[in-house]
């Protein structure tokens, strides 16, 4: 009873303030979303209208079709998008293939050196690519591998974060089930593939989103290793506008829209998974 009284008491007199607060929250949300609205709106306009002093969201002259046709078919944006998908997909597949077995071994199997390995994983968690980029770059340069898909993916083939995350996840898997499966004659490989892996689907899905988004949006590493246009990722392609836009502003923002769209659309379709995946880095540094 008393808790019901309390909620009533705290709600009624503040309803006006609560309404104002809600309005401010939506105003803030409008500020957050406005750059996207402006971008899409500008991508549908002719150049002279983009910076019109009399700004309107709906284009007065619709040039959307021409702008997007230009970007997708007369400029290499489909190649850039393809490169991004290839690189992100390649990285993710190798990360899963290398991290899942290692995490299982660390979580459930006894072997000498496991604590050293786990300690190394924890230490590596704090090391960003920006610190190891010089030796990796020099190594790639000496072996003539710069400006290849392999160079773009190589530093990310192992995700210590994935090992850490999956290990935590596997540890909570009951030993009794694993032992029962062993008694029933399951091999360790079968245990991994048929028991552990299906149970880890939520963690794997969340990690996949995290990895894909992080590498899609990465500018630093492609900027270092990619030099030729046909290897450029979508994100890297934005560098050609640095400090100087394409003289056709409508087209510039059509290309920005094309680069941003895949992650934003995917986010809108799988909101929970995205929010969980991206903030999950939060588990531990």
């Amino acid at each position, binding site marked *: 009873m008393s808790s019901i009284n*309390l909620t009533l008491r705290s709600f009624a007199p503040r309803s006006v303030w609560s309404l104002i607060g809600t309005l401010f929250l939506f105003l803030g949300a409008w500020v957050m979303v406005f750059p996207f609205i402006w971008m899409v709106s500008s991508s549908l306009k002719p150049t002279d209208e983009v910076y019109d002093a009399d700004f309107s969201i709906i284009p007065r002259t619709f040039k959307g079709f021409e702008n997007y046709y230009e970007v997708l078919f007369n400029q290499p944006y489909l190649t850039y998008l393809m490169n991004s998908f290839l690189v992100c997909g390649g990285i993710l597949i190798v990360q899963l293939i290398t991290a899942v077995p*290692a995490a299982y*071994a660390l979580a459930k199997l006894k072997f000498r050196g496991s604590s050293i390995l786990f300690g190394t994983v924890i230490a590596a968690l704090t*090391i960003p690519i920006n610190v*190891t980029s010089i*030796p990796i770059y*020099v190594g790639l340069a000496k072996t003539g591998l710069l400006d290849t898909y392999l160079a773009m993916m190589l530093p990310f083939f192992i995700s210590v974060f994935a090992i850490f995350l999956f290990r935590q996840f596997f540890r909570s898997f009951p030993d009794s089930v694993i032992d029962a499966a062993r008694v029933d004659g399951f091999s360790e490989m079968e245990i991994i593939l048929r028991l552990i892996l299906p149970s880890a689907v939520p963690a794997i899905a969340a990690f996949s989103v995290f990895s894909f*988004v992080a590498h899609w949006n990465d*500018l630093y590493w492609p900027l270092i290793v990619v030099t030729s246009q046909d290897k450029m990722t979508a994100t890297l392609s934005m560098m050609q506008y640095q400090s100087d*836009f394409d003289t056709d502003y409508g087209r510039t923002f059509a290309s920005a829209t094309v680069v941003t769209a895949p992650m934003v659309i995917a986010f809108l379709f799988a909101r929970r998974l995205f929010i969980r995946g991206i903030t999950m880095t939060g588990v531990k540094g």
Partner: protein
Amino acid sequence: MSLITKKRAQARLAYMLVLPAVLLIFGIYVLPIITVFGISFTDYSLVSNYFEFIGLGNYRQMLTDEAFGNALRNTLIYAGLFLPSSFFISLFLAIAIQERKQFRSILEVLYFLPVTSTLAAMALVWAALMDSNQGVINLWAGAIGLGPFNWLGSETMVLLSMALISLWSVIGFNMVLFLAGLTAIPANLYEAAAIDGADHPVDKFFRVTWPMLGPTSMFVAVTSSITAFKLFDTVAILTQGGPNRSSEVFLYLTFLEGFEYFNMGYSAALSLVFLGIIFLFALVQALFVDRNVQY
């Protein structure tokens, strides 16, 4: 099968399972970290194969290098603008959104949208919005009698503009972390506090929310600090450190030294300082979070 052979079989299997990961960790982390230490004691430059060991020369150079001091100062100013605002605005938003259950999911989506989007592309949009002559922001500021501001072209404003763009891109992330922390606070604590006389929102905040949110706050503060130190994309796309080096931040300087001027030795030393700072943050978090978990 005897117990010992079973154990051996298990260990053998474990080695097979960890082998690819071990090789990759060695090649991608261990070896490069050792090498970067080594390079930082040389004057190695990618342009020539000849190099000498110069001991602590690169580290000594930092003390007198104007660019280093400048980059450090810029990073600190930027962090000073970015960190408090990204922390408190997100916290405030999270509390406000949590109280409005019926709008929570739509607001969460709208505020989180910038987090997933490609910052390199959205930076271009921000540059257009912040354009000193025709940008929408100055247009609207002018309508209420402010400005015009030279957001990206003036030495005094450029770091503020960078902080604003970063703020926009990270608020949703911090907010979701705070929301998770808030949801985990048991409702009966608020009831107990109310019985003790703390039923004003401000009292509730300081008596219950803030202490219970300790670990989350610490986590947000540490990740935001690391994010602040990693500022790169917007600088690389929008200003290249300009105007007149006023937005040349630490990571961007490290990048320039290594991959534009090819001073690998100096750049290696800079990136180790960078790593040291990140380690420091991680350490603070490890120490502080452990002391502060008090459920």
